[in-house]
């Protein structure tokens, strides 16, 4: 079996899982000021992702760790090449994680309002920047023969990458709204449904534009199906079929990720300086022994992880409503 290819697929799966899962909790966080009218609404929203957001984030940690192990040069060039955007993402994730835990532990409205701002920015910034980063990956970066990225930070904000960022931001907002429609009850649910219905009108053209600009071959097909899934999601949410709508937006997010990795293949970080300098699955991969070891570890433990994470979603499957929220403590 071609182990580097297997690990490229494994890393694509991990990123896809990350976008599908943390995509909705980014959306929920960023929608706080849009869908909540008072503190109880905000707490309904935050508690709907409360038990699961941290586990969702581990998909990112695992994707990055797996990249380090399986494609060290990809890991090194990508993180140093996107230095400032990655820094911003880290600061956002730090603030956001602490904010979820700490916002309820203060006594004043001002304390909570400040942490709410951190949650909103900490969710919206990574939602935009992941799209920007991955669009740049697909497009390629200025990179020399030594695999050192020489692109300036301003070059990262090209039209295609900004489109990618706006797409992930708006798509995650929609995905988060559909999640809230599915997982909450009361006014937040009503507003989330309305928001989801309206926001499709923004997300859809962005997705179509991105897919058209990106697509070639099989990846294009995945992008087209993503568009179809998004339309299906829009129909479902308007008909009040929240479960189907969430499935559809999850599929759309997942297929967007497939489109990105499918277009990237067989490269992992294309060089715009000279295609000969590109990092590819073949030249960035670790040796077969490391990949074999990691394959066994993943084969044994990934199903286990999926099992208990699915169980935790099952445990917290019920809708969260205003009545469930206890008094402030």
């Amino acid at each position, binding site marked *: 079996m071609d182990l580097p290819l297997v690990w490229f697929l494994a890393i694509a799966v991990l990123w896809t899982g990350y976008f599908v899962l943390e995509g909705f909790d980014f959306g929920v966080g960023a929608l706080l000021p849009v869908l909540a009218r008072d503190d109880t609404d905000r707490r309904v929203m935050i508690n709907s992702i409360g038990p699961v957001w941290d586990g969702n984030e581990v998909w990112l940690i695992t994707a990055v760790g797996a990249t380090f192990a399986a494609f*060290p040069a990809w890991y*090194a060039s990508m993180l140093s090449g996107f230095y400032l955007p990655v820094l911003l993402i880290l600061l956002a994730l730090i603030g956001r994680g602490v904010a979820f835990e700490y916002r309820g532990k203060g006594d004043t409205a001002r304390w909570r309002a400040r942490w709410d701002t951190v949650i909103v920015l900490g969710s919206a910034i990574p939602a935009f920047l992941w799209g920007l980063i991955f669009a740049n990956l697909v497009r390629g970066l200025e990179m020399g023969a030594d695999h050192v990225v020489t692109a300036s930070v301003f070059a990262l904000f090209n039209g295609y990458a900004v489109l990618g960022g706006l797409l992930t931001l708006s798509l995650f907002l929609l995905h988060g709204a559909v999640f809230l429609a599915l997982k909450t009850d009361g006014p937040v649910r009503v507003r989330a449904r309305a928001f989801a219905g309206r926001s499709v009108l923004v997300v859809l053209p962005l997705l179509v534009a991105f897919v058209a600009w990106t697509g070639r071959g099989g990846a294009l097909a995945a992008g087209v199906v993503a568009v179809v899934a998004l339309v299906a999601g829009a129909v479902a949410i308007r008909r009040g079929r929240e479960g189907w709508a969430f499935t559809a937006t999850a599929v759309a997010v997942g297929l967007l990720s497939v489109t990105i990795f499918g277009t990237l293949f067989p490269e992992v970080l294309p060089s715009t300086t000279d295609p000969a300098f590109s990092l590819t699955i073949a030249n960035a991969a670790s040796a077969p022994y490391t990949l074999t070891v990691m394959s066994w570890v993943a084969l044994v433990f990934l199903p286990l992880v999926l099992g208990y994470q699915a169980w935790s979603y099952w445990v917290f499957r019920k809708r969260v409503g205003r009545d469930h929220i*206890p008094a402030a403590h």
Partner: protein
Amino acid sequence: MALDLARWQFGITTIYHFLFVPLTIGLSVIVASLQTAWHRTGRTEYLRATKFFGKLFLINFAMGVVTGIVQEFQFGMNWSAYSTFVGDVFGAPLAMEALLAFFLESTFIGLWIFGWDKLPRRVHLACIWAAAIGTNLSAYFILAANAWMRHPVGFEIDPTTGQARLTSIWAVLSNDQAWSTYLHVVSAAFIAAGLFVAAVSAYKLLTRKDEREHELFRRTLRVGFVVTLVAGIVVTVSGDHQAKLMAQYEPMKLAAAEALWDDEHAAGFSIFAVGDIQDGRNHVNVQVPGLLAFLATGDFDGDVQGINDIQERLTAEFGPGSYIPNVGLLYWAFRMMMGLGLAGVAVSVVGLWLTRGGRLFRWDWQYRLVVAALPAALLANIFGWILTEMGRQPWTVVGELLTANSVSPGVSLTEVAISLSAFTLIYAVLAVVEFGLLAKYVKAGTAAVMPYPENDAAEPDRTDDDRVPAFVY
């Protein structure tokens, strides 16, 4: 210059991260044990203690998680040359840490926080244990990776790429430096966590705001002492083993930590030294004869290598350059680690004796001393890492890769300056916030997490039919 800033950033972010890690490692197990005690005995006091220390644990846990994310990204951001060189070997334990430990930890901590009154009691108890196991397991993988940098095993250098290539994952995971370091670091973490519980309890006994919780904190004070004492024994034994491994694998680190300038037969252990680092000699050196030789080799008559002689040998092996780390810093870091760590253990030993058979401390200063033992233990943990990491210099991977050759070539001085400032600033703010919250919840006491019943009536049992998650956010 970018190299210096990148090193400062790694030092600051890692030390900061490690203020929270030891408490998470130890407190997860202590809280799980308290909950187990409640589960076994059904006594409300244990539940109250679980909820009180569980709250403090979670405030600390959040900081450990978010500062940990930076660690995994930082290798690629600032040390891309290092990452490319070691990724084949070093990446594997990191990926395993995420897959085996972080998922376990974060999924089950969510289930534990929100699962009160929702999950069956036995399952809920299993959740905190799963999180505690995940936490303690993650330490093994990251320490195996760190141990490999100090004593690289199970690899070869690929002749075409010049990069490290894993040949035996078993060698990396069973590295004697890995398990020895694990025992030492985790026991040191339990000292910090034990003293955290003791210090909080001592503070509550000292302030005596609420007489109802007096008995609870008298007991948890002793729990903290017992944990510290047991961990103190492990830390001493494993520390002795660490010294021997250091003499074997990193003689320069040991020589610098002892300010031992020349190879010596039956070398003495330095208690206090004033030296001339430029000149490579000490002016004053108060020693315990033969003790260093015993620590390093197990024999009072053993031979210990000195800085100047090792420098000569390393120059012969690796070419010209200075292979001497920061001697003054290491010498004092070594003493601070041992001094502060053992002082914390001593406090717990004396404390256990003074509180035997239901006794209480007689004087307030005794409680204050216990409170002061907590920062001492955390500092001891930090100085241990300064000794470990600064003592490895000028290498990132001993004998294989120099720190100067590890940094990201494409990252500019400006970029590192921005990230260093940003992390330092946000970490400083969060430190203030975190300390404020801990202080608030310690002061509020156990009644804030679990109200006492109005009169002397029997305490109400939990209502198991009310299966709504605890929406704590």
